[in-house]
C-alpha cells in the first residue's frame, strides 16, 4: 500500500496507479447517457419519487434511501393544509421532448471535422444535449415540465483526462466555439443555461468521465482527484481506504468536485473539514491560454494574491477545472446524530451564537424554524408500532404541557457529531449544556437524522409539489450574527407580503434554517413555496418575489450568496456587492484568460463579447 502511494506520488497524477480504485473508477457514478439513470425533467434518480399510492398516501418509491418504500401518512395533509391545494388539480409534466421539439444544433463544420479527427468522444444526440441545457433552477425545471428551450448546447463532449480537455479547449479556441463546462448539473442559479443570444456553436463539456482518484498521499493526507467525480463517489472510494473528504453539500450525491470549486461550495460538515476553499491544496484549470496551476502542494503560500481564489467561484467563465489536490482526513471512529428543541427561534439563534463564540460547534449544527420543524414532523414515516406512537404522544405532552413549549413557536436544532467516541461524548455534553442555557432540550437522535435526510429528499418533494401546482425553491445568504434573527423574520415577511401583493389568496410556505456557523456570522437558508393556481405566469411571479427577497436580504445586511453563487439570476446585484472597481478587476481577469469569451456561459457579469469569427 505504502509502495503504491510512493509510486503514485512519483507519477504526479498522470496515471492512477492504484489497482482497486482504478477498478472502481471504470464506471463513474454518472454514465454518459445520464437520462438512463436520472430523471430527464426532475431531480435525482429515475426510480425514486414521491407518489400518491392507491390509499392516497404519500409514498417514496425505489430502494435507494432510508425512507424508500415507506409511506408518509402525514405529508399529504400537511400539503393540503399549507397550500390550499386540491388533489384534483394536477399539472402533469409534458411528455419527453423529441428532436423536433428542440432547437436544431448550430454546427461549426471545421470544428466538427477537427473534433472527429481528434477522436474525442462526443454526441449530437438531442437528449444528450437537452440534459445539459439546464441545472435545477425552478424556471429550468418548469421549462422541462411545461415549457420549452430557446437555446441548448449543440454538442456534448466527454473528455476523459486533462490532456483531452486541453485538446478540446484548443480546438474551441481555434474555431471560436463556446464551451460550457458541465459537472453534476445541480446548479440552482441558471449557471448552466445557454445564453439565448449566443450565435456561436456551444459545446457542453461534460466532466463526468474524469472521475479518477489519481493518487492518495497518506503521509500528507492529500489526494489528487479528477474534477468530474461526485461527492458520493469520493466518500465511498476514500472510505474504502479509511479516509474521507468531509465535504457534503446537500447535492453531494450528484455534484462534482469541479463544480464545487467553480461555485465556492460549502459542505454541511464544514465545522470540521472546512468549506471547499479550505479543502483545496492545488487546482489545475485549463484555460484558453494554457494550464493555470501552482508549483507545489505546500499548505499555504505568500506569492501575491492567491490565484486559486480567481478560480474558486469563477462559475465556468475562465476555464475548466480538471484536477484538484484536496486535503483528506482519516474516517471518524464515530458519527452520531442529535437534536435539541428550543421554545422559539430567537432562543435557538442565541444558542448557536454562543456555540460559535465558544467555537465548540460539532461537525454540523443546523437550526430550523417552526415552519420547517412542523414540516419535518409531517415527514415521519408510517408508524406500525403502537408503543412508538404512544411514546411520541408522551414526548409531545411533556414538551407542551410540562415544559410550556408552544407548538406554533418551537423549533429544533439538528446535530451531527464526529470524532472518536470520547470526543463525541465530550462534544455532546458541551453542546447540550450550552443549549440548556437557552431553554433547549435534547430531543433525540431520530429527529436529528430525519432533519438531514430531509435535505436529500427535499428536491424530490419539490417535484411532487409541481405535480399539484405548488412551486418551491430555496435561496441562501450569509450575515453577521446580530442580524440573523431579524433577517429571518424580515425575509419571511417580505415573501408573504409579495405573495399577497400578487393577489395570492393563500399564504405561502416561507421557512428558513441557520445552516452554518462562523465566528462572525452565519449562513441562512430559505425554503419558499406557494400554490400557483390562478397565476398567469407563476415562474415570473416567483422570480419577482425572490428578487424582492434578495433586496430585503441586502437591506438587512446579508450577502448576495453564501454558496449557491451568482449564475445569471443574481448578476444584477454583483456591482452593488463588490463595487464597480471590483467588477472591473474580474472583467480584466476574464479578458486576460479568455479574450475570445470561449467560456461564454455568461455567468457573473456580461463579458464584452468579441466580434464573432463566423
Amino acid at each position: 500500500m505504502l509502495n503504491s502511494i510512493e509510486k503514485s506520488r512519483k507519477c504526479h497524477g498522470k496515471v492512477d496507479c492504484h489497482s482497486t480504485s482504478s477498478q472502481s473508477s471504470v464506471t463513474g457514478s454518472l454514465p454518459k447517457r445520464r437520462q438512463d439513470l436520472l430523471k430527464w425533467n426532475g431531480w435525482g434518480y429515475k426510480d425514486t419519487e414521491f407518489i400518491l399510492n392507491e390509499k392516497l398516501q404519500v409514498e417514496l418509491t425505489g430502494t435507494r434511501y432510508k425512507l424508500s418504500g415507506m409511506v408518509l401518512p402525514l405529508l399529504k395533509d400537511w400539503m393540503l393544509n399549507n397550500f390550499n391545494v386540491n388533489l384534483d388539480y394536477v399539472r402533469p409534466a409534458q411528455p419527453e421532448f423529441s428532436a423536433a421539439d428542440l432547437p436544431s444544433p448550430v454546427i461549426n463544420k471545421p470544428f466538427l471535422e477537427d473534433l472527429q479527427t481528434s477522436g474525442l468522444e462526443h454526441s449530437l444526440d438531442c437528449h444528450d444535449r437537452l440534459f445539459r441545457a439546464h441545472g435545477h433552477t425552478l424556471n429550468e425545471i418548469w421549462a422541462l415540465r411545461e415549457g420549452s428551450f430557446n437555446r441548448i448546447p449543440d454538442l456534448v463532449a466527454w473528455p476523459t483526462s486533462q490532456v483531452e480537455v486541453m485538446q478540446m479547449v484548443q480546438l474551441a479556441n481555434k474555431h471560436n466555439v463556446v464551451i460550457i463546462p458541465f459537472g453534476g448539473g445541480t446548479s440552482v442559479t441558471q449557471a448552466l443555461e445557454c445564453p439565448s443570444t449566443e450565435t456561436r456553436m456551444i459545446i457542453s463539456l461534460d466532466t463526468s468521465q474524469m472521475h479518477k482518484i489519481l493518487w492518495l498521499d497518506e503521509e500528507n493526507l492529500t489526494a489528487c482527484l479528477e474534477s468530474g467525480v461526485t461527492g458520493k463517489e469520493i466518500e465511498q472510494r476514500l472510505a474504502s481506504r479509511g479516509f474521507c473528504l468531509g465535504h457534503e453539500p446537500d447535492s453531494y450525491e450528484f455534484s462534482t468536485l469541479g463544480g464545487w470549486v467553480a461555485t465556492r461550495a460549502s459542505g454541511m460538515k464544514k465545522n470540521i473539514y472546512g468549506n471547499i476553499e479550505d479543502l483545496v491544496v492545488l487546482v489545475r484549470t485549463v484555460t484558453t491560454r494554457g494550464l493555470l496551476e501552482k508549483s507545489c502542494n505546500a499548505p499555504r503560500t505568500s506569492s501575491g494574491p492567491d490565484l486559486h481564489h480567481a478560480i474558486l467561484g469563477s462559475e465556468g467563465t475562465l476555464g475548466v477545472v480538471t484536477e484538484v489536490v484536496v486535503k483528506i482526513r482519516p474516517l471518524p471512529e464515530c458519527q452520531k446524530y442529535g437534536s435539541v428543541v428550543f421554545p422559539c427561534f430567537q432562543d435557538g439563534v442565541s444558542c448557536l451564537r454562543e456555540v460559535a463564540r465558544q467555537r465548540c460547534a460539532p461537525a454540523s449544527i443546523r437550526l430550523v424554524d417552526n415552519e420547517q420543524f412542523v414540516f419535518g414532523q409531517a415527514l415521519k414515516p408510517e408508524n406500525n408500532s403502537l408503543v412508538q406512537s404512544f411514546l411520541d404522544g408522551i414526548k409531545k405532552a411533556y414538551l407542551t404541557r410540562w415544559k410550556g413549549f408552544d407548538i406554533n413557536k418551537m423549533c429544533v436544532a439538528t446535530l451531527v457529531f464526529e470524532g472518536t467516541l470520547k470526543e463525541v461524548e465530550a462534544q455532546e455534553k458541551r453542546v447540550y449544556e450550552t443549549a440548556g442555557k437557552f431553554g433547549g432540550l435534547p430531543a433525540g437522535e431520530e429527529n436529528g437524522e430525519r432533519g438531514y435526510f430531509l435535505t436529500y429528499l427535499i428536491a424530490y418533494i419539490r417535484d411532487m409539489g409541481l405535480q399539484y401546482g405548488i412551486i418551491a425553491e430555496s435561496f441562501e445568504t450569509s450575515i453577521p450574527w446580530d442580524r440573523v434573527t431579524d433577517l429571518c423574520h424580515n425575509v419571511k415577511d417580505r415573501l408573504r407580503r409579495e405573495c399577497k401583493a400578487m393577489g395570492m389568496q393563500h399564504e405561502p410556505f416561507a421557512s428558513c434554517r441557520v445552516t452554518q456557523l462562523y465566528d462572525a456570522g452565519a449562513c441562512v437558508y430559505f425554503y419558499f413555496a406557494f400554490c400557483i393556481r390562478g397565476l398567469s405566469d407563476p415562474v415570473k411571479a416567483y422570480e419577482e418575489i425572490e428578487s424582492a427577497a434578495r433586496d430585503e436580504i441586502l437591506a438587512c445586511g446579508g450577502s448576495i450568496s453564501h454558496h449557491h453563487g451568482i449564475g445569471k439570476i443574481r448578476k444584477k446585484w454583483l456591482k452593488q456587492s463588490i463595487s464597480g472597481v471590483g467588477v472591473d478587476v474580474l472583467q480584466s481577469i476574464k479578458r486576460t484568460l479568455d479574450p475570445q469569451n470561449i467560456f461564454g456561459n455568461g455567468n457573473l457579469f456580461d463579458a464584452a463579447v468579441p466580434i464573432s469569427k463566423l
Partner: protein
Amino acid sequence: MIRAIPSSKFFLHVCAKQSAGWVLGDFCRLVALQLCSSGSIRRAMSFSPKRKGTYEEILHHRSQQSDVGWSLRSYTPPQYRYCSPRRPIDVGTAVLASPIIRHTVLQLSEEDGSSVERLEQEAEAIVKEMGHDLGMGAIRLFAFVLSKAWRRIYKAIYVNSEHLTKLQGLCKDYPVLLLPSHRSYMDFLLMSYVCFAVNLPVPVITAGADFMSMKGVGSLLRKSGAFFIRRQFGSDKLYWAIFTEYVQSLVRNGDAPVEFFLEGTRSRAQKSMGPKLGCLSAALEPYFKGEVADIYVVPIGISYDRLLEETLYAYELLGVPKPKESTSGLLKARHVLSGDYGNIHVSFNAPISVHEYFRAGVDRSVHATLPRYMSSHSVEEVACTQSLAVDVLLQQQKAIVLSPWSLVAAILLQHSQPGGMGVAERSQLEGVGVAELAEEVHWLKLQLENFGGRINWPGGYTTEAILMDTLTVHSDLVSVSNENRVYLKHVDDVKSKNAALDPVTMATAVRHLTLALYRNQLLHVFQNLGLVALVVTGSQENEISLEDLYKKFMFLRNLLCKDFIFRPCDVEKDFNGVLLGMKHTNAIVQENNHILVAPSVNKCTVFMSRMFEPFLVAYWVLCQFLLTHNRASWKIRDIIEGTQGLEAAMLNHGMLHHYEILSLELLSNAVNGLIHCGAICREKAANGNPSLLAKPFELSKVATEIASMVTVPTCDDAAAYVKILAVPLSAKL
C-alpha cells in the same frame, strides 16, 4: 352678564407649563366626585346617534353593561408576533445593557475623563426618570373613571371603524406608531381610552417631562403608558442615546404601539404646526437598520366640538396671565360636570407602511458595514422622514371631522367692511339674526365640502337646528336672545405683562382669539384656495395671467410655510388642483390663460381672502416694525414683543381691526416664515448666541407685496404709527 367659562375653572394658574397639572389634578377630583355621586346623567342623543357612516359611538353603547363590568371586561388586544413579553422595568434594563449605551458611556468617559461608574449612574437615573410603567390596572381604572366623567360632559365619542380591522391585523405583524394630532391635553387619555374600547393594544406614549414633576399624577400617567422626555436636551449625548434607544427598544420588540405627537407640543392655535423629527426618526431607525420588516404609521385626527382649554389657549397665545380663580377645586370640578362639551371625533386614517413609503427612495443596505449600534441616517433617509412627517400631518388634517361651530366661528370673525366694524363687533352690540347666520353657515358648509373638508353634520336636521345645537354647546361664548339674535359674550379686562397692551384691547383679543381657534381648525381645507383668493381679490388689473398668479401663489406659500402645512414638492399640483376646484364652483372665471378679475371677485373669494387676511397683516406689521427700528441684531423675543406692542397701538388707533394678530404664535411663525424667505437671516452673535439680522431691502419687498393684496394702513398713517411706536417701545428696547 359676566359668566365664568367652565373650562377656565380647570386652570387655576396662568402658566401654560403648569396648567397640565391642573387638568389632571382636576381629573383626580373628578374621580372623587364621581365615586360619591350617584349614577350619571345621560344626555339626549338626538344629534349624536350611535352609529353614523363608518363612525361608531364608544362612550354610550354599552347599555347593558355597567362601567365596572366594561372596564373589567376581558381585553385581549392583538400582540406583535415577535414580541418577547417583558415588564416595563425590563425595558429600562435592556436599554442600559444595550450596545449603544455602553458605547456612549465609554466614549463620553474618554472624551471628558469622567468615570464610567458615574456615567452609568447618570444613565440609570435618566432611564428611571424616563420609564413608563404601563399596566392594565391603571388602564382599567382610567376606563372606569373616564367613562363616568366623560359621559357627564360629552354627548358622544365617535371612532371611525373603517381601518380598525386592518389595524388590528397589522398590530400582529408589525410595530405600529400612533400619530394623533395634538390640540388638547385630553388627546393623551383619549387615545388610550379609545384603544382600550376598540380592542387595540394600549400604546406607550411619549410625554413632555413637565408632566412628570406632578406628584401622584406623574406615576399615574406612567402606569397608563407614558414615558417622559425632557423638552430640551440639545447636546446631552447620553440623554439623546438613552432616549433613542428607549424608543427603539419599544419599536423593535413591539411591546405596544408607540404613540407620540409629531408637532412636539399641543397646537394651541388649533392648526397643525411643522413636524418635529426627533422622535419619528428615532422610531424609524429600526426599519432603516433592518431590525424590523416594516413599521406602520397611523395618522389620527382628533377633534373636539368644544375644547376644555379654549380660553386658556387664547390667553397663552397672547402671552398674558389668566385671572386667578377663587373657588375651591372641588367646586370647580362640580361646575365642569355641568358643562356641555359636545362630541369628540377620533379618526384613524389608513395606516401607512413605512416600507412601501420608503421603498423607492431609500437604500437600507448602506448600513450593512457599520455596527448596528452606530446611529446613522443617510441623506435620503432624512429627506424621506421629513416628507413622511409632512404627509402624516396632512393626513391628520384630512381625517379631522370639523364641528359646525368652526363654520360659525369663521363667519363671526369676518369683517363686513374693510376697516369697518365686523360681525364680531356687531354681534356683541346688536347681535346677528339666527336665520342670517344659518344661511351663511350653510353656504360655508357647501364650500367646505367642495374642497374636501369633513364636517359633523347629522342628517335629517335643518341648518338652523344644527346651528342652535352648536350654539348651546358654546353658550359660554355666545348667547341667543329671545328675539332669536346671537350675541357674543363679554370678557373681563385682561392685564398683560407687555406694557404696550392695554386691558380692553386684550379682552377683545381674547374673545377674537377664542373664536379664531375654532376657525383655524378649518383653515387647512382652504389654505390653497385662500392664497389664490388673496391674489385675485387684491388685484388692481382687469385680468391676471396664470403665470403671475402662480408666482404670487408661490410667494405666499413660501411666506406662510410656518403657519400652514404644505408639501413643497406639490406646489404645482396643489395650484392646478385648487384652480380646477375654483373653476368648477365658479369662484374664479378663466379665459385662455388669464383669470378675469371682476367676475372672480365674488362672495367665495372675498370670504376666503378675508379669512386669511389677518395672517398677512401680522406679517406686514412685523416687517414695518423691523424696518422702523434700526438695530444690528435681534433676539426673536424682542421682535415678537415689539411687534405685538405695535399691533396693539395700531388696533387702539383704529388703523387695524384684526385682534387675532396679537397672537404670539402667529408672530413667531411670521419671523420664521421671513427667515425662510430670506428677509431675516440667522447668524451667531459675537458672544456665540444665535441672533437675527433684518434685511431691509427684502423686508420692504415682502411688505409691499403684502400691501398689494390686503388692506393695510396707508402711507398717510405712517407718521401716526411712527409716533405710536416711539412711546411704548422706547422704554422697553
